[in-house]
């Protein structure tokens, strides 16, 4: 199913926001829409977006590559994106990330064994003063978690795991 077939209303709404001669600007909201269900944009979705906006699939892919918000591969149900940029690093984000990974027995960029969370390292998320902080990207959108500790984070992951089971 193409993107327009899947989300006819949303696509229309997004495209309506931009003047027709600058419709390529709609690439980001469309990508965000495309990865709603699976957490990543498929090659087919990239082609759909390219066709919708009269750009090349390579143009679309480069946006995915540039922003850590977009993904072209299936990973965990949630992506935990920890900022380790300089201000956060000064507040211990590096160490936080390392300990978190040790606890989860994964490395940065990897996914927990049960495919629940993928731990990623990203650049500034504009929450510098509340580090360690991360954003949680999942099917319900994006949530910020600030002033975090490893323990609090592990509790959060446990809660996610439970809620996931209930849904099933």
């Amino acid at each position: 199913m193409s993107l327009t077939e899947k989300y006819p209303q949303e696509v229309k709404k997004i495209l309506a926001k931009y003047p027709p001669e600058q419709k390529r600007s709609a690439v980001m909201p469309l990508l965000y829409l495309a990865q709603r269900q699976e957490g990543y944009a498929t090659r087919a979705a990239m082609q759909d977006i390219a066709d919708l906006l009269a750009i090349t699939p390579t143009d679309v892919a480069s946006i995915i590559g540039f922003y850590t918000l977009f993904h072209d591969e299936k990973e965990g149900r949630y992506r935990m994106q920890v900022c380790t940029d300089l201000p956060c690093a000064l507040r211990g984000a590096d160490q936080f990330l390392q300990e978190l990974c040790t606890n989860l027995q994964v490395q940065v960029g990897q996914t927990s064994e049960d495919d629940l969370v993928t731990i990623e390292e990203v650049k500034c998320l504009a929450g510098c003063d509340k580090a360690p902080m991360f954003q949680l990207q999942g099917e319900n959108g994006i949530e910020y978690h600030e002033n975090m500790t490893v323990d609090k984070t592990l509790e959060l992951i446990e809660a996610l795991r439970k809620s996931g089971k209930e849904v099933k």
Partner: protein
Amino acid sequence: MPKQLVSLIIDGQSVSVPAGTLIVDAAKQVGIDIPVFCYHPKMEPVGMCRMCLVEVGRPVIDRVSGQPVIEGGKPKIQFGAKLETACTTPVSEDMQVVGMSEKARTGRKEIVEFLLTSHPLDCPVCDKGGECPLQNLTMAHGSSESRFKFDDKQHQKKHVPLGDLIWLDRERCIQCARCIRFQGEIVGDAVLDFFRRGRATDIVTYSEPGFDSIFSSNTTDICPVGALTTADFRFGARPWEMNSAASICTHCPVGCNTTLNIRREARSDGNMVIKRIMPRQNEQVNEIWLCDKGRFAHHFSASPDRLAKPLVRTGELVTESSWEEALNLAARSLVEAKQDFIVLAGGRLANEDLFNLKALADGLGGKAALYTHMGGGYLTTLAGVSMDTNFGEMGAGTSILVAASDLYNEAPLWYLRIKQAAARGATLILAGARETKLEKYAAHVIRYAYGDEAQTIKSMQKSKAGQAAAEALASAQNLVVLYGSDGLGLEGSASLAEACAGLLDMTGHAGKPGSGLIGVWPHANDQGAWEMGFQPVADLAAEFKNKLVYIAACDPVGDDPALAEALKSARFVIVQELFQTETTRLANVVLPAQAFTEREGSFTSGERRVQRFYPALPAFGETRPDFSITASLAQKAGLELEGTSALLIMNKIASKYKSFEGLSYARLAEVREQWPLVGRGDIYYGGAIYANTQGLGTRLALLEAGSLPGTKPVESKRPSESELLAIPVCKIYDRGVTVLPSTLLHPHIGDASVSLHPDTAVRFKVQAGSTAQLTVNGTAYQVKVLVDEKVPASVALLPRSMGIPINTPATISLKAA
């Protein structure tokens, strides 16, 4: 309107340049080289690499008066706290630029050091080594030792195919985006882009089928490192081992200027071989670019099918012979034939060869014909373009009409340059029966049904789309009309030419400088043949009957097996060729010719520019240049022709043909300084392109146009319901004798195919991708079926030179195989 001049000082030198000029270009104009990596004079600046850092000072402006503050009689200059990028900063009045200071030098040194932290420095095995901007600029500006920990070096994939002609070495890429911008800005096909950020940045293509642009190889010239290499030249030779010779591309009528790089090669028994073809700058022809066909389809001159010695037939037996024997036999037959002979010349021949062939035909009373499927050329000699037309300078005020031509496939560099002209404001009008790639840039598109070409041009005002186009044509200051043979044979194209010439006449553009008619010919030197009075013949078979046939540089039997019978009915056949072909197999005498890479000569491009090419390789076997073979033959038949020197023949051409008046080899070899400056020590600026030191060529003069002939109506073929009309079209990579020997192009050449509209495919019960049986003129062929919405209904697009003879639209039958 000339732009206002701005004066400034760069490293102590005063410079005056037009407003808007970038510091880096202004410096270049007075011989100051500011190092760059990402900047390229043909593309918009992006300021990504920071290599061009300079100190910039500007006059201090008094806040109250708004006037520059004067100190000691001079404006007070204030330098910024930080270095600025010379490639993105336009000049301004009284600016002072310092690139030689310690501060600027340190800035560059640090940038080089940063770049090298992620660079493998594998120069000894890198194709670019020896002509590498990074290597050169590291020598000039870099530090002599590394402070970077070796273990922290990134290791990336070193052999990534971006398409099947271009390879990427990820480690070597310095992320200047020149390749990406070339594809996006210049070609208009954004199939390359960055992926990820920072040190993880990668060049990728997500397009299908990858980096498959017909201009892809140009990125290897402008890549400032050895990250991009061609499949043809990769690991082939070091730049300093090769010699170079100036040449001209022979694959299409554009006439791109090239440099052949040659080297002695152990793998080729110690013979000299062409290692690669590089663009040679000619801003009026190809600028600094080449298409991939021009660059890669050079292997034919070393093809194993090359003829090394003359061949003579006695009955069924064909034997190698001496030149003396072969020429004697041919000359005797020529004398015996009296005036009953025809010379059939191919558009691959040089001007000098054509001149001698024509002189032989005229001198001995025979007929001279051009072997082509496209007519109307004599009109380009009357109403063609002259001195002042240059696609590179066209913009607002110029209208360009392209009729019945798919320039992307037929004349790639014209496609590229016309696209650019349209971006600069020229009005582009496309008249075609099907959608072609250039249409994206057209202001007006006129769609007609195959068969209505000439009529459409003549009665343009009658359609709605045509009306706006007609107005744009009439009101244009300059009008350039290109016509081709998409879907047309000899008659159809001749009548289209007449309609186009009529249009130039009617709008008052005929004979005016800056305007004119251009034929998109199937061969590199068809224009030269037309200028010398060659004409095509409609019915070759009839012309062959009982005559002596002297064929040079064409393979009529290979193109159309039906002509074999006709050639057998000739009284004697002389063929002058590079290779064994289907035609040479039927010859009584075969005379082996030199390839253009082995001799000198000149071609006339479709824009009527005469350009010289020079010998690069020693002659193959016992081959001789075409002009000298013809001269020897003429001499033995009692006619004196110049056969020793191409230069002397050019002098004769100049005195015989009005349009060539004043031309000489010396004139053709003249050069002027061109902008941007390329090919000097500063390869980082323009790329590895060669400077033009051996001739920019000269345009032919416009003849007194007089009155142009009117148009004869042509009957257009209309298929009936049960029939299918096959339309000949052009495919850039075909099975032509000069293309096929380049094996690396085979995946692009593919098999004989036919393209149909989905409805047509359904009607004839054939499926996309399947093999079908196509019957044309009573002969059946196997073809692959391609289905494409863009193909007009009820026609079948059949590419020329793909093994199925199709010169002119023909009814065919088609069924599943």
